[in-house]
């Protein structure tokens, strides 16, 4: 092939350009630690990386929800735990009230007063708030659920709605325990027992004891059920964290530069560029025939 001067010059410039582009590309990959900057550099990995990022964000959202639910359920559990203690105390009090050695005065005065104290504590626990919301009033979060009316009877201001929260793609949990079904019977039974004590109605008191024990069992069952749901939430948080780790490492493998590899390639490309420049400068500045002709 006949080689002209312009051919060698163009050829050289073009090769320098190509080599510089490759060096630039790798430098960029190392500096940004990403193996691609725009989707078109690697469409399939880019699509996968967008999906993974989205999955991570969504998972984070579920974890936020789950941790809110978790805190709410811990608050619920701790209140119910204390309610159980109160219920136990009340039962013991009623049992000693039924004891033959107990005097009528004792029943109608000190014991009734003690039970009234327990009732007030139970009402306070039923009105527990978490982050400004009443946790036992169904979905009427702003309304205090439990109060005593002028006749000393228990009123419930909440509703019996459940609050269902999504803590995973397809996992929903009921996070609240409705006060009217779980707590009202207990407090009502306590009030009933207190009234029987006041009236010194021993027969009535033994019926009250049964109601009280049933209410206690029912509360316990509800607490166990709520605890089981709370464990489900905790497990699901742990599982999501686990999945996140996998997703993150997948994301890294899709879009992160393998630095060691890139460094080696960069070195090789730099050497290539250097050689092109070296050889090129010699070829371009090489003397041509004009320099040798004797004039």
């Amino acid at each position, binding site marked *: 092939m006949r080689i*002209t001067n312009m051919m060698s010059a163009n050829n050289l410039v073009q090769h320098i350009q190509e080599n510089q582009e490759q060096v630039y590309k790798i430098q960029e990959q190392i500096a940004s630690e990403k193996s691609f900057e725009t989707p*078109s550099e690697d469409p399939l990995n880019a699509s996968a990386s967008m999906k993974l990022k989205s999955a991570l*964000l969504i998972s984070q959202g579920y974890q936020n*929800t789950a941790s809110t639910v978790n805190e709410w359920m811990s608050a619920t559990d701790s209140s119910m735990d204390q309610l159980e203690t109160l219920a136990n105390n009340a039962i013991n009090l009623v049992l000693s009230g039924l004891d033959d050695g107990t005097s009528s005065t004792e029943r109608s005065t000190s014991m009734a007063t003690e039970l009234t104290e327990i009732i007030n504590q139970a009402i306070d626990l039923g009105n527990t708030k978490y982050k400004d919301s009443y946790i036992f009033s169904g979905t009427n979060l702003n309304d205090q659920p439990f109060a005593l009316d002028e006749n000393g009877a228990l009123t419930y201001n909440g*509703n019996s709605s459940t609050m269902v*929260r*999504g803590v995973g793609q397809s996992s929903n949990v009921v996070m609240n325990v409705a006060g009217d079904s779980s707590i009202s019977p207990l407090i009502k039974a306590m009030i009933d027992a207190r009234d029987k004590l006041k009236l010194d109605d021993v027969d009535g008191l033994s019926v009250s004891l049964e109601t009280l024990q049933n209410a206690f069992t029912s509360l316990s069952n509800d607490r166990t059920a709520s605890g089981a749901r709370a464990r489900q939430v905790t497990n699901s948080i742990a599982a999501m964290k686990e999945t996140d780790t996998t997703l993150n490492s997948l994301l890294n493998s899709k879009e992160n530069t393998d630095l060691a590899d890139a460094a080696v390639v960069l070195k090789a490309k730099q050497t290539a560029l250097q050689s092109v420049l070296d050889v090129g400068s010699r070829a371009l500045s090489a003397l*041509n025939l004009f320099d040798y002709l004797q004039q």
Partner: protein
Amino acid sequence: MASLSSGINVALRAVLSQTQVMEVIEHNVANANTEGYHKQSAVLRAVSMSPSTATYYNYGSGQLGAGVTVSQVQRFTQSFYDTKYRSVASENSSWSYQSSELTRIEADFGDLSNTGLSTALDEFWTSWQDLAADPTNSSLRTMVLSDASALTNKFNSNSQSLVALQQDQNTALKDRADEVNSLAKTVADLNYQITQAYSVNQQPNDLLDSRDLALDRLAELAGAVSTTQDNGQVIVTINGHLLVSGQNTTELSTQTDPNDASINQIVWSDNGDTLSPQTGEIGGILKVRDEYIPGQLNALNQMAATLIDQVNTLHSSGYTQDGSDGGNFFSGTDATNISVLDTLTAKDLAISSSKTEVGNSDIAAKIYNLRSQKLMNGNSQSIGDYYNDKVTNLALITETAKTNKSQDSTVLDALDEQRQSVTGVSLDEEAANLTTTQKAYQAAARLMNTYDEMLDIVINQMGLVGRS
């Protein structure tokens, strides 16, 4: 030897011819780096003696020659490679244009960064989810509003940048049409001058160079094809429609598309037909403007419309914390004008499905669930997946354009090398030719000198017998 005077003529012709050869070499050397220059060479031809002289002086055997002359200045050209080069050049410029414009869309959208539409969409969904978990939390309500604004802003800016890019294509199209017109005129003028030169038996080498350059550029612009006629003129066509014929050109004009006021079209001035070449820069512009941009814009609009429709329907069915009816959440109809309703404040968010239950967040949960519902593409894809698909499609188109561009460039470079190899100037070659020419010139001059001495003998020294 015939006569002293004819001998001196032979020497003179040699001196003059070598001088002309020297000038051609000079022209080559001067244009060694000129784009589009084709190497020229003076073709030397031996001159035979005129028959009358030959007979008269033919004392010995055989005919004597009368020296040398430059018969023509030849231009080195390879029309096969020209045709091939132009066809690849028109493909290449189309791909190269497409890849640069598509890269702009990708850069504007920034889908891989954390500021892309995809991320904004996910954050929007997540903010509803957070609110669903804790419906009375007023800071989460504010979060929903601000994430929704971020999302609508991203929709707006993405669609605006597409519209702006489409406008740019209109300008680019008009510029290219003007350039085609001016090149067509150049070719027509050159056609005329070239025929003139041929008619007086001259080689219009440098005019041919200029015309070839113009034809290269016309191929790059619109995939124009040329055919050379016997009289040396070229006929240029684009998509089979005559652009240049002899000294006449058909003008291209730019006008607004009667079906769509936002785009321009190029029409032939003679019959009003639309010019839509498949290749060349113009082909690339049309592809980007009429296919890729509307495709992306349409996808954005559909996503925005679905989002507006679905979220508004759900939000309108809900109740605010104080029990009033929820209204629309978004205003607007498509990606250009989607926006969170101006009047909406944190307390107006209607996320409860019951008038009285403040802890109810069913609506927020339902809006969050829109994320995974297959609402797009004939109810086969979720909004997020649909967008991911669109981004990937655009990326694949861009990748194809880039790959084709670099492949065509390689072919183009190889073809250009072939062309250069035939038509380019090699300085070494010229130096060698220069030396041989110089020697020939020196020898001819020396010859003339010899004749001069011989004439001196004949004129000044003969017939002086006996005198001194």
